């Protein structure tokens, strides 16, 4: 078991350091922090709302992640396939599962770093008022879980192509569908012809409806299971796709 986890850690370590070897990490962190705070203060009207909470900050996360998570995850497998290093990886004494998990966690922990760096906004709101810090903590955890689901989806889809740009586009489109699944416009269109259980299933697949519950401080088992299931399912498909597409 020790060796098994150690191999995952070696993959994870290489991948995470990989983000910082290029300007990608700093650009990403800057863009994330600039956009998240810009949206909070300007679009979210943080001050005008006159409320000591971070709703204005977190409510933009699904939309930010829609673009930023594919940007982090697009290289995970597309680049290995393009450069031929996938042949090197697969001929090492390591399983595809270890490779997929190691890579995924590297991107997920990188996102955690970005979220941790946004903490000054938490400090600010505590300085200005008396927010419910439990709700904020739950929102942070929820946001990280949702990022994980976006990343697992991107990692899985990046196996399908050797081109990072294509990986980015298909991941963003798929993410958009998962966000929009909960919108009443979509649901009412489906409701007109589909049985109620289909409408409910589609509605329950929405990242947005799960995340909005988290934002209110409601962290129920359903939401946890939802995001974890999405992550596990996407990674499982990812492992199968690596096996299938490695030699293409």
């Amino acid at each position: 078991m020790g060796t098994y986890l150690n191999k995952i850690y070696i993959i994870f370590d290489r991948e995470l350091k990989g983000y910082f070897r290029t300007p990608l990490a700093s650009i990403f962190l800057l863009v994330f922090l600039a956009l998240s705070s810009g949206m909070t203060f300007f679009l979210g009207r943080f001050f005008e709302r006159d409320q000591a909470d971070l709703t204005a900050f977190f409510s933009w996360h699904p939309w930010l992640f829609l673009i930023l998570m594919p940007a982090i995850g697009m290289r995970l497998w597309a680049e290995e396939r393009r450069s031929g290093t996938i042949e090197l990886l697969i001929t090492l004494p390591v399983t595809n599962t270890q490779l997929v998990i190691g890579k995924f966690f590297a991107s997920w922990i990188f996102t955690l770093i970005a979220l941790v760096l946004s903490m000054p906004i938490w400090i600010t709101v505590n300085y200005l008022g008396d927010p419910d810090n439990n709700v904020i903590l739950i929102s942070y955890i929820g946001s990280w879980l949702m990022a994980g689901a976006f990343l697992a989806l991107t990692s899985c889809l990046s196996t399908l192509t050797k081109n990072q740009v294509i990986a980015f586009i298909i991941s963003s489109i798929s993410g958009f569908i998962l966000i929009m699944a909960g919108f009443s416009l979509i649901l009412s269109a489906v409701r007109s012809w589909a049985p109620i259980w289909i409408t409910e299933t589609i509605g329950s697949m929405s990242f947005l409806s799960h995340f909005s519950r988290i934002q209110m401080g409601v962290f129920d088992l359903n939401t946890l299971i939802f995001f974890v299931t999405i992550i596990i399912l996407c990674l499982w498909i990812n492992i199968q796709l690596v096996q299938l597409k490695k030699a293409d």
Partner: protein
Amino acid sequence: MSSKLVDAKNLKKSFGEFVAVDNINLSVQRGEVVGFLGPNGAGKSTTMKMLTGFLEPDSGDILINDIDLKSEPLKAKEFIGYLPEGAPSYSDMDVSEFLSFVGKMRGIDNNKLLNTRLDEMANQINLKEVWDRPIETLSKGFKRRVGIAQALIHDPDILILDEPTDGLDPNQKHEMRKLIRAISNNKAIVISTHILEEVEAVCSRAIIIANGKLLANETPENLGNNLIQENILSVTTTNKINNAMLKDIKSTLNNENVKVEPLGETSSKILINQENKIININKIITQLNKHKITVTEANVLKPNLDEIFRKITQNNKVTDKWI
């Protein structure tokens, strides 16, 4: 425990309708360097990818040091060092970082041992001057050397190198061959190449495949002796040989397989193909002297590997462009 480090039986691999590898048997023992030759698309790389566990054969078995690659892939892969075609590597990493990554993944978990191996690689493969440079800034020659170093980092029993000298300049090629020879004593090595002189220079056995089929599996010397029935004596003379003289020579030598190539105005080259018979140079020169032909030079021409390769692969209707 068999002495075969690599033992592949009845390997088959198809991609859709295309049969890439068709029933190939191959075994390599410790101390052997096997050269894998074939036109482009012959199935060399596919075979190597199967031997290293990158691709699964449609049918057939591969034993690596007596371990079944299919049922125990992780254990079997530990014995293999592999340089894939084009020597891919993580271009954003430094040479030392990359080799240390591969070393750790290959199971060298003791830091002291890892550092010793890294030092050995830096010295043995001559990587010292680029040790802390990102791989993307290196020349093709250095990149290839880094590829070799990652294949050797865990001192594997089996080394599989797909075109190790491709893209190297003549000096680098020479160095690479020297290295392969130096490490070949206690390893089983398989190299694929387009360069036939490489096979003669480093290989103890040559395997020729075309259209996925194994056509020859011989020592480079036997390849010539067994596959091409030619035994040619080339004689340079100070005379101009005309057709009448050629006819006389043929009847004196009792051999119809004699050709004449003019060399300038006053001399000629006579090529006598003795086929399976032993060449007796003295006898032939004496017989030529009878026709007042003065011999200034006589050489026995060995068939070269280029010709052998062309002949074998073309006989098998290989239409691919090769080399």
